[in-house]
C-alpha cells in the first residue's frame, strides 16, 4: 500500500477523534479505539521501515501536491526507524497503562486517551514530515498536549510544573519559528530538501547564521539540554505516571532526532563544522550536560525525579555525540536515540508498576521491594544495568560508539565525562538496589521471620515491562545489525 506513511500519522489522529466521540456514548469504548489506532500506526510504521530498507527513501506527497509547494513526508532510514520506535513505545505503554490511568485520573480516563493519542500524532508527525513549518506546528501539538497531560498529574504541583513548562516551551518553539522565518527570507522555501539545495549555494550569509542559531537554540530548549533543562524534572515528575513513561523516553529523543535532521538534511555538515566550526564548543556543552545531569541525579530523594535528571545527562550524550563531527560519534548518537528510548521506557515501566502498588516513589518508601515485587524489580535492574552500560545490554554499545567517536575527534573530555557518568549511574542505582533489597520493611514489626507477601503489579503491566527489558538485551545483541543496515547506509 502506498499510503502507509500518511496512515502512520492519520490513524492516531482519527483515533483521537473517534475515541472522544465514542466517550459520549459509552466511556469504556475510548480505550479499545485508542489501542486499535496505535496498533494500526505501529503496523504501518513497521511496513514503511521494511519498504524503506528494501527500496530506499519514500517521498509521500500530501494530497498529491508536489514539493516545494506541497507538504512532503520524506521517510528515509532514520525516520523509518524512529517512527517504529515512537509508535511501538506509545502502543506498548497504552497496554501497560490501562490500570494506571484508571487509578490516577479515574473519572477522566477517556480524555486522557484522546490527548494521549494527539500527543503521539504530534511526535509521529514531527518525525515523518519533510517541511520546516509543518514541523513547527507538530512540535506545538506535542507540546500543548503534554502541558495538559502534565497538569492531570499531581494535584498540588502538576499545574504549576505544567505552567512553567508552557512558558519555556513557548520560548523554545518561538525561537524555532523565527529561525524558519529567516530561512524563508533567504530561500523562499520551506521544504527541507529544497532549502538544503538552495542553502548549499549560499556562502557567508548572516541571515542563514541567525536562522541556524535560532532553530538550534529553540530545539535545545525543547530537548532540555543543560542549562536549558529547568522545566523537565518537575514536569515529568509530577505528570501522571502513564504519561511520564511515554514522554520521558520519547519527547526528548524526538527532539534530538529533529536536531540531527536539521544538521544533516537542512544546514549540512559542511556548513556547521567547516564554515562555522562549532563542533568543539557544543561537545563541551554536551560534556557539561552529562556531568551536571548525573551529579544532580545523585542528590534526589524521589526515584522518578532521579530518573528525570538521568534523562538530562543522556541528552548530553546524544548532543555531544552528534556534534563530534565524525561518523562514529553520529552513529553512537543515533543508536543512542533508540537505546535510550528503550532503557528509559523500561525504567519508567518499573516506576509505573511501583506507583500502582505503593503510591509513592520516594526512596525511603521503597524498602523491601525486591521481596514484594520481584518481577518488576528484575526489569528495573536490567534497565539500570543498561543505563550504566553493562554489556550485553544495549546501553553499552551506543556508549562504546560514542567513546570511540570521542577518541577519534580528540575530545577526551567527552569520553571522560561518559565514563564518569557511567560510574555515577552505577553508584545511583546501587543505592536504590540497596534500599530495595537489603533493608526490610518488616523490621519494626518485631517478627523478622514473617514471610514477605508478593504483591505484584497486574499481569498486563508485567508482560510489557518484561518484554521491554528483554528487548534491551536483544537490541544490544543486534546493535551491529541496526548499525549496518540502517545507520551506516543512512550516513553514507
Amino acid at each position: 500500500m502506498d499510503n502507509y506513511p500518511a496512515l502512520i500519522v492519520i490513524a492516531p489522529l482519527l483515533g483521537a477523534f473517534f475515541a472522544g466521540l465514542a466517550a459520549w456514548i459509552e466511556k469504556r469504548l475510548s480505550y479499545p479505539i485508542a489501542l486499535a489506532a496505535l496498533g494500526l500506526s505501529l503496523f504501518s510504521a513497521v511496513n514503511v521501515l521494511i519498504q524503506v530498507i528494501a527500496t530506499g527513501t519514500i517521498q509521500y506527497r500530501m494530497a498529491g501536491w508536489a514539493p516545494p509547494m506541497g507538504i512532503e513526508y520524506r521517510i528515509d532510514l532514520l525516520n523509518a526507524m524512529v517512527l517504529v520506535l515512537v509508535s511501538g513505545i506509545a502502543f506498548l505503554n497504552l497496554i501497560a497503562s490501562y490500570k494506571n490511568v484508571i487509578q490516577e485520573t479515574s473519572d477522566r480516563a477517556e480524555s486522557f486517551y484522546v490527548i494521549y493519542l494527539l500527543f503521539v500524532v504530534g511526535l509521529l508527525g514531527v518525525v515523518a514530515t519533510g517541511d520546516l513549518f509543518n514541523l513547527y506546528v507538530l512540535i506545538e501539538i506535542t507540546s500543548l498536549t503534554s502541558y495538559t497531560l502534565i497538569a492531570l498529574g499531581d494535584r498540588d504541583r502538576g499545574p504549576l510544573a505544567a505552567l512553567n513548562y508552557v512558558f519555556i516551551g513557548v520560548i523554545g518553539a518561538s525561537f524555532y519559528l523565527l529561525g524558519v522565518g529567516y530561512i524563508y527570507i533567504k530561500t523562499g522555501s520551506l521544504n527541507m530538501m529544497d532549502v538544503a539545495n538552495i542553502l548549499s549555494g549560499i556562502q557567508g550569509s548572516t541571515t542563514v547564521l541567525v536562522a541556524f542559531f535560532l532553530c538550534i537554540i529553540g530545539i535545545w530548549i525543547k530537548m532540555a539540554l543543560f542549562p536549558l533543562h529547568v522545566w523537565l524534572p518537575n514536569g515529568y515528575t509530577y505528570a501522571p505516571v502513564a504519561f511520564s513513561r511515554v514522554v520521558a523516553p520519547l519527547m526528548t529523543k524526538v527532539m534530538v532526532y529533529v536536531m540531527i535532521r536539521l544538521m544533516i538534511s537542512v544546514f549540512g555538515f559542511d556548513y556547521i563544522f567547516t564554515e562555522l566550526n562549532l563542533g568543539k564548543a557544543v561537545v563541551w556543552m554536551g560534556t557539561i550536560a552529562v556531568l551536571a545531569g548525573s551529579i544532580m541525579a545523585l542528590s534526589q530523594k524521589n526515584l522518578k525525579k532521579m530518573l528525570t535528571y538521568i534523562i538530562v545527562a543522556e541528552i548530553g550524550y546524544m548532543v555531544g555525540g552528534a556534534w563530534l563531527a565524525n561518523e562514529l560519534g553520529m552513529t553512537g548518537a543515533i543508536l543512542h536515540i533508540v537505546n535510550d528510548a528503550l532503557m528509559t521506557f523500561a525504567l519508567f515501566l518499573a516506576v509505573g508498576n511501583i506507583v500502582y502498588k505503593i503510591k509513592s516513589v520516594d526512596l525511603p518508601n521503597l524498602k523491601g521491594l525486591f521481596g514484594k515485587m520481584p518481577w518488576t524489580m528484575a526489569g528495573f535492574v536490567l534497565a539500570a544495568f543498561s543505563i550504566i552500560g553493562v554489556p550485553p545490554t544495549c546501553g553499552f554499545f551506543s556508549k562504546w560508539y560514542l567513546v570511540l567517536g570521542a577518541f577519534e575527534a580528540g575530545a577526551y573530555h567527552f569520553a571522560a565525562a561518559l565514563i564518569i557518568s557511567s560510574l555515577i549511574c552505577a553508584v545511583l542505582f546501587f543505592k536504590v538496589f540497596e534500599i530495595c533489597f537489603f533493608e526490610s520493611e518488616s523490621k519494626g514489626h518485631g517478627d523478622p521471620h514473617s514471610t514477605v507477601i508478593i504483591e505484584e503489579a497486574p499481569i498486563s503491566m508485567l508482560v510489557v515491562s518484561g518484554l521491554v527489558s528483554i528487548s534491551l538485551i536483544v537490541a544490544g545483541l543486534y546493535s551491529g545489525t541496526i548499525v549496518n543496515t540502517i545507520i551506516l547506509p543512512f550516513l553514507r
Partner: protein
Amino acid sequence: MADFLALIVAKYNYWLYIILMMIGLYAMVAKNNLIKKLVGMNIFQTAIILFYVSIGYKTEGTIPIIQNAHGGHGGHGAIIHAADYINPLPHVLMLTAIVVSVATFGVAMALCVRIYQRYQTLEEDELRMRLSEK
C-alpha cells in the same frame, strides 16, 4: 551614526519586532503575577507573527488575487509581475501560528484556573512560599 540611523529606518520592521519581543520576554521573566506573565508570552508570540507579516509585504503591492484568472483565460494574456503583489505565503502560515498561540494561551489560562483553585493566589512569590511550607 547617520549610517546606523539609516539602517534602523530602512529595516524598521525588524527593530519593531525585536523591541516587542523583548518587552514580552521581560514580562515573562520579571513579572510576579502569572497572568501578567501570560500577557508577556502573548506579546512575545505576536511579535513573531508581526515579523512574518512584515516580510510578506511589498511597497505598492496589492492583494494577490489575479483578476479574470478563472475560465482559462489567465488574466487575458496580460503579463503578471510578482512585484505587484504581496507574498501571501507568510501570512497564511501565520493563520496557523495564531491558532497555535491562541491554543497555548487557552491551555495556560486553564492551568492558571487550576492553580488559583488550589492555592487562592496567582502571585509567584506567594505560591513559592506555600510550596516550601509543605
